[in-house]
């Protein structure tokens, strides 16, 4: 293993402190208004978590309103209309604005520290993600104040959410707001994947990675694959509501069940997207408090991967009552039972670790024990619900509500609290109060079970979910009252926890370094951490760095390890091999910037103008957002604000922008996986409607000109060919004709756009009359957008060659754009096959 830069900068007269000051100069956060430009993962992770807690409080208040309404029979505390808005927003806020962003925030904060690096690999993307989350959340929750909140349940089934039954703006708030928030989730998903794979400190091979990083890797990949189906569904439903394209209307050839498929293709993995990071917290904490390594590291990795995959094969178990063949139900029933296997493996691993260790029942462990009890119960009712006959009996009753809360609160909230208490000393440098914390735990635990254990019985007695009141003769009175009392006890517990956390910042005892005697690298940080995390980046070849080398925090702080240099003025971290952890590049990161804020503000304008149907303004804002994003991308590579010279310390690996394999390539790849998932969801929708929709009508002759489409496809292939040739030349340090080649590729992209535009124009599609034409329009717009994007990016690359930012000396960026070209070729030709060739071959 190469070891480099073993000392701090020699010209530093103050030793390590001087180096700290220099790094602070480069990485430090500005104050005042400029704090909005911060891209640092520590600050943004905290912002995500604080914002998530605010939304949690809003969601919690909504829950208490629901419980107040249901406490007694025949209550009129709320009108049915308001009740519908309240329960819909409770679910929506908790799932989309609390659970996922909160866990992403924790991952954003924790992952770089755990894997021994200084920041996430796309810091400006973190910032964009945060602002999209914030603005999307504000837009969505503002609907409550306006009394225009969505009211069709958090999964927005059509036709209840369609314009016929929900003519006001509630559904639009949901569709646009959630899609906006999903930009944030996808941004975090993409960069967490790349950061974990490519920026672990040297020596940290895949099998030495902290288990938390494994969990977050799986979660992030699941977000990348799982969110696009819902984004597609939301786009289609919003188009139906705004323009009248009948994707989900039977009369127009659509099918409301398509929405259910698209929603649950996202919705079921979502449960595991929430559970996996929480289980990661459990797998991190239990070995620490048991005082021994986890039993069966490999088994846990096995369980994580299995859960990630199997969870995508269960979505139809939410739809057992819609009328699908028994054999299909049996497939999904079996798959639903299978997912209990990896979950059980993890539970046994945790129990075995506790059994073989010497557990200390500190405050975080209380929450872990609470998790084990509640989550196992939730898992068992999950297996019950996987059984089709039982599912039919309790479908849409409070039993399902109780099960869901056992799984989500038990499987996410309890571990989250454990994690927050565990890492609190790292956040603040202070310890929480054990006394208030224990009161908080027990009140929450007792209150939770009083609410939801009883709710199982209410459901078994037949009480449907979402009813705003019930008759006293139904026999549900006492159970509802007890559930409501339990809900308020739980609220009191959560209030105590929040008070404890708030008070500890001022009154908490100062924490000693690594107060829990943890094994993972984040505790090598200062408490609270600096903006750059570590002065020097160590070589780590063990799963328990701080147990095996307790002196590591000191030597890291003294700059005795790698990359302990600040003279170049760049934000730098190691780029390592994803499998072995061997050093590959020095990654330089962009600094603080206004562009993410500006871009997200422009996107917020798009969202609001679509909401109020000001389409011209929406169009302008889209262009403005695009300009901001492209301007942001301009400050890259050899740009003066990025890395104008390629100098590195002797023995250091080269800057990533001077290689052909930097993190941008990986980021584009992961983004294209998400894009591919969107595209496959679209194809699923096309074939689903074609096969299943009762009123689907395929015209006798296709409205699409096959010749022109093939011409557009050839232009795409030619564009890709040009790009491949240029990239191949750059690999051999040849950049003659690079700019001209990029302009040619751009021209071919523009030609593709023109030809698709011509096909669209000449097709004369009746998009508001038939789902067939509407689906074709969406597909062609998808191709149009991608062709245009490839053309614009190639054009910009050509310009960058002219400025000297790209060339044989900085060959990286065209390789990134070439990936998009490859993707475009594949998707466009598949689209031609699906939309223009197959209907001609097999007809309607």
């Amino acid at each position: 293993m190469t070891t480099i830069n073993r000392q701090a900068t020699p010209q530093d007269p103050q030793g390590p402190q001087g180096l700290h000051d220099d790094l602070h100069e480069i990485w430090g956060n500005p104050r005042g208004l400029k704090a909005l430009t911060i891209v640092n993962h520590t600050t943004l992770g905290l912002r995500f978590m604080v914002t998530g807690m605010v939304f949690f409080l809003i969601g919690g208040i909504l829950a208490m309103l629901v419980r107040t309404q249901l406490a007694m029979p025949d209550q009129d505390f709320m009108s049915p209309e308001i009740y519908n808005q309240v329960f819909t927003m409770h679910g929506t806020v908790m799932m989309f604005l609390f659970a996922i962003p909160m866990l992403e925030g924790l991952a954003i904060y924790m992952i770089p520290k755990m894997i021994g690096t200084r920041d996430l690999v796309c810091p400006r993307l973190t910032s964009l993600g945060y602002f999209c989350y914030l603005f999307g959340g504000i837009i969505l929750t503002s609907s409550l104040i306006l009394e225009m909140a969505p009211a069709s349940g958090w999964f927005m089934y059509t036709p209840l959410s369609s314009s016929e039954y929900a003519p006001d703006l509630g559904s639009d708030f949901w569709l646009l707001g959630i899609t906006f928030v999903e930009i944030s989730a996808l941004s975090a998903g993409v960069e967490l994947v790349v950061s974990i794979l490519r920026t672990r400190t040297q020596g940290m091979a895949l099998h030495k990675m902290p288990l938390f990083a494994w969990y977050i890797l799986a979660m992030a990949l699941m977000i990348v694959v799982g969110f696009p189906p819902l984004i597609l569904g939301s786009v289609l439903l919003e188009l139906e509501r705004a323009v009248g394209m009948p994707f989900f209307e039977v009369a127009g050839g659509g099918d409301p069940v398509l929405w259910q498929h698209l929603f649950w293709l996202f919705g079921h993995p979502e449960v595991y997207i929430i559970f996996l990071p929480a289980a990661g917290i459990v797998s991190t904490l239990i070995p620490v408090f048991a005082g021994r390594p986890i039993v069966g590291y490999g088994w846990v990795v096995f369980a994580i991967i299995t859960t990630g995959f199997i969870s995508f094969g269960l979505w139809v178990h939410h739809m057992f009552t819609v009328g699908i063949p028994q054999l299909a139900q049996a497939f999904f029933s079996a798959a639903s039972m299978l997912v209990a296997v990896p979950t059980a493996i993890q539970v046994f691993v945790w129990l075995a670790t506790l059994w073989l260790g010497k557990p200390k029942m500190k405050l975080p462990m209380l929450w872990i024990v609470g998790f084990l009890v509640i989550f196992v119960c939730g898992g068992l009712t999950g297996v019950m619900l996987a059984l089709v006959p039982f599912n039919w009996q309790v479908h849409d009753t409070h039993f399902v509500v109780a099960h869901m809360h056992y799984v989500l609160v038990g499987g996410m909230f309890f571990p989250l609290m454990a994690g927050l208490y565990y890492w609190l000393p790292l956040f603040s440098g202070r310890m929480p109060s054990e006394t208030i914390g224990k009161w908080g735990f027990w009140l929450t635990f007792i209150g939770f079970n009083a609410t939801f254990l009883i709710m199982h019985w209410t459901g078994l007695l037949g009480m449907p979910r979402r009813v705003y009141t019930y008759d006293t003769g139904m026999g549900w009175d006492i159970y509802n009252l007890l559930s409501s009392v339990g809900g308020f006890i739980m609220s009191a517990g959560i209030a105590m926890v929040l008070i404890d956390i708030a008070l500890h910042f001022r009154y908490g005892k100062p924490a000693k370094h690594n107060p829990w005697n943890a094994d993972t690298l984040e505790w090598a940080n200062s408490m609270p951490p600096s903006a750059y995390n570590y002065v020097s980046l160590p070589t780590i070849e063990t799963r328990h760095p701080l147990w095996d080398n307790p002196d590591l925090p000191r030597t890291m702080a003294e700059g005795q390890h790698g990359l302990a240099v600040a003279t170049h003025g760049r934000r730098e971290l190691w780029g390592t091999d994803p499998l072995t952890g061997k050093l590959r590049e020095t990654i330089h990161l962009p600094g603080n910037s206004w562009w993410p804020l500006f871009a997200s503000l422009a996107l917020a304008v798009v969202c609001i103008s679509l909401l109020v149907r000001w389409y011209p303004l929406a169009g302008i804002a889209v262009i403005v957002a695009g300009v901001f994003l492209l301007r942001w991308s301009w400050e890259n590579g050899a740009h003066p604000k990025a890395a104008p010279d390629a100098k590195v310390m002797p023995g250091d690996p080269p800057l990533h922008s001077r290689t052909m394999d930097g993190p941008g390539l990986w980021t584009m790849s992961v983004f294209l996986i998400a894009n591919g998932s969107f595209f496959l969801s679209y194809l699923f929708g096309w074939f689903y409607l074609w096969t299943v929709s009762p009123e689907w009508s395929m015209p006798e002759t296709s409205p699409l000109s096959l010749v022109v489409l093939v011409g557009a496809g050839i232009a795409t292939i030619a564009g890709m060919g040009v790009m491949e040739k240029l990239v191949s030349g750059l690999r051999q340090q040849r950049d003659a004709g690079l700019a001209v080649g990029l302009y040619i590729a751009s021209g071919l992209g523009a030609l593709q756009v023109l030809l698709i535009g011509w096909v669209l124009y000449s097709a004369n599609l009746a998009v508001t009359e038939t789902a067939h034409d509407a689906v074709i329009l969406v597909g062609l717009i998808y191709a149009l957008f991608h062709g245009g994007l490839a053309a614009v990016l190639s054009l910009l690359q050509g310009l960058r060659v002219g400025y000297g930012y790209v060339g044989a000396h900085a060959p990286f960026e065209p390789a990134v754009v070439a990936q998009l070209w490859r993707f475009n070729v594949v998707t466009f030709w598949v689209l031609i096959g699906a939309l223009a060739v197959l209907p001609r071959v097999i007809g309607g």
Partner: protein
Amino acid sequence: MLSLMERLRLTHPIHFVIGLTLWSIWFVVVYGGQAVACEVAPPMPEQGVFNLLNGWLLIVSILAMAVLVALTWGCCQIANRHQGRLRFNAAVSAGLYLFSALSVVFVALPIVGVPPCL
């Protein structure tokens, strides 16, 4: 067989995802195939489980299971020959292939007992 397994580089972590990807493809093929066949050309209800569609679903399932079992065996062999990172990768892959194979068996079991389109 062993040389084929060696060419597959079973110590690479890509095999962590191949088994379950194959399982996912099999699942989509079986569920999608059954759904499309039931829409386009459903077998007669009086045929019960003994019909062409269930036969095809069963053959596809057996093939998928056979491939996954072979890969499990290959990973076990390779894991025994290595230490450290490579052994870890092959052993975890073996477990994942085995789980994928068993998952095919478990999910496919209803094919032999339930008519496809009722």
